[in-house]
């Protein structure tokens, strides 16, 4: 009898546990599945369908959207975008690494303040942060006028509406996303490891190269992805700072969905962007695994 009762009790506890599991998990998971995963499935299916006469989708199977993406015209946009995003990412690393390293050298309370100052602009309106550069760089803008007053320039120079302005805008927008992960990787390094290297006869710069740098790689990779991916898909910076002459893959996707209304072709372009993101995460996971594997050995 007693067994039976404790069995019943256990069942009741298990039922309650299952119920709370459902209450906590189902709403959030359902929301993400319905509003993100299923729509991504739609996009994938669209890539094989035809464009309707008046926009929209016709359920006629075709591969022409894919072959069209290989047209040199579009391929160039894709490669240009990858180039711009790569340059932005490399610059973000070149600036972000010393900055992250410098923050780890500050006293603890100042570290926190610095990190807040670095991320604060990131939480503000993206359009406005981009617009601020127009105010600053315009031929009649702050920088040109200032340099002319100082006698450095005799006439205003055009700083906007070229690829370098796009790189600058993207760098400005996403630099914090490079600094933070590198910082977290650096602060996690046990100082004893560096000391051990120095005790074993390494010079400080050797210790930096042999210990600090390799252990920072996971943070660098995450930072790289966090800068590269949004740079690639951005259409605001090329439009506002590139003057509309610079077309990146983000602009192309936006136009296919909102202007040309060629959703199947836009879907192919979006899919290529998503696949690139997945590929980067895959590579990052592989490299991480190798670094951790070496450390464990």
């Amino acid at each position: 009898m007693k067994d039976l009762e404790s069995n019943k009790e256990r069942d009741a506890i298990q039922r309650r546990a299952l119920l709370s599991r459902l209450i906590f998990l189902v709403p959030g998971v359902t929301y993400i599945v319905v509003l993100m995963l299923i729509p991504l499935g739609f996009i994938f299916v669209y890539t094989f369908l035809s464009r309707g006469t008046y926009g929209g989708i016709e359920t006629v199977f075709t591969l022409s959207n894919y072959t069209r993406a290989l047209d040199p015209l579009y391929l160039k946009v894709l490669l240009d975008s990858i180039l711009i995003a790569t340059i932005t990412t490399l610059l973000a690393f070149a600036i972000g690494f010393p900055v992250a390293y410098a923050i780890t050298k500050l006293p603890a309370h100042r570290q926190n303040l610095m990190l807040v100052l670095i991320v604060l602009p990131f939480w503000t309106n993206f359009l406005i942060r981009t617009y601020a550069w127009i105010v600053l760089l315009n031929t009649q803008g702050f920088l040109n006028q200032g340099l002319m007053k100082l006698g450095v320039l005799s006439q205003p120079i055009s700083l906007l509406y070229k690829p370098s302005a796009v790189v600058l805008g993207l760098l400005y927008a996403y630099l914090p996303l490079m600094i933070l992960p590198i910082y977290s990787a650096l602060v996690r390094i046990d100082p004893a490891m560096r000391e051990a290297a120095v005790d074993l006869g390494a010079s400080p710069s050797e210790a930096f190269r042999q210990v600090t740098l390799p252990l920072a790689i996971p943070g660098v990779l995450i930072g790289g992805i966090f800068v590269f991916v949004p740079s690639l898909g951005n259409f605001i910076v090329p439009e506002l700072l590139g003057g509309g002459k610079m077309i990146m893959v983000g602009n192309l996707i936006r136009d296919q969905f909102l202007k040309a209304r060629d959703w199947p072709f836009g879907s192919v372009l979006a899919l290529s962007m998503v696949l690139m993101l997945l590929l980067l995460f895959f590579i990052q996971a592989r490299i991480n695994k190798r670094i951790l594997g070496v450390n464990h050995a």
Partner: protein
Amino acid sequence: MHKIGWLRAPLYATLAFLYLPIAVLMFMSFNASDAPFTWTGFSTKWYSVLLHSPLVIEGFKNTLIVAVIATVMAVILGTLLAIGIARYQKSSILEAIALTPAIFPDLALAIGLLALFATFKLSLGLHSVILSHALFCSAFVTAIVRGRLAQIDSSLEEAAQDLGDSQVGIFFRITLPSLKPAIIAGALLSFTLSLDEFVIAFFTDGPSTPTLPIVIYSMVRFGVSPEINALATLVLLVSIVIVIIAQRNVKVQDSL
């Protein structure tokens, strides 16, 4: 033992790089002249111009509606999901899915949502922006609350359970109060994120109900004007104040 030395240079140069454009913009918003670049004297007239612009007022109202409702949804969805993952179903796949809306390119989310609404013949308007914003905002709430749950001890909840408190009682008397700072921070951040979000709103909004970022976009495309500078200054200040308040509850940099 803190030696920063020459590393000061890149650090302070980067801070200057991050804040100079914002500072110049704010400064120029007080320019008396309507010539966008030449300083002629101090004035707050562009701020009163804004208050009389029906488009800006309308955009602000729409944005406020979206941000408030999307934040309420995001807090409920995100908090429940974070507790579910931390306490009931530890799974790295589940965790990855929960955070994807925050990491995924906004453009990909935007076209997916547009496709979804089109397929189910749902009209576009503030309701579709609200549903869309709740998606990525909830991922930020999940991340922040999940981070807090990892820090707090579950032994209090277990003790309460041993003492015979009900699941519901434990949730409301122990779990929820200990998560309060994280939930407040999550709500504040999701509110600013929604307030400032442009790409997803641009795709999922209807033509008659522009949100404030959509209004700003239509203005900045036509170049620099003192009204935009004033509007931009206000929008920047609102976000900065909200994020600083959120910062008092959790380290916001940990949740990016």
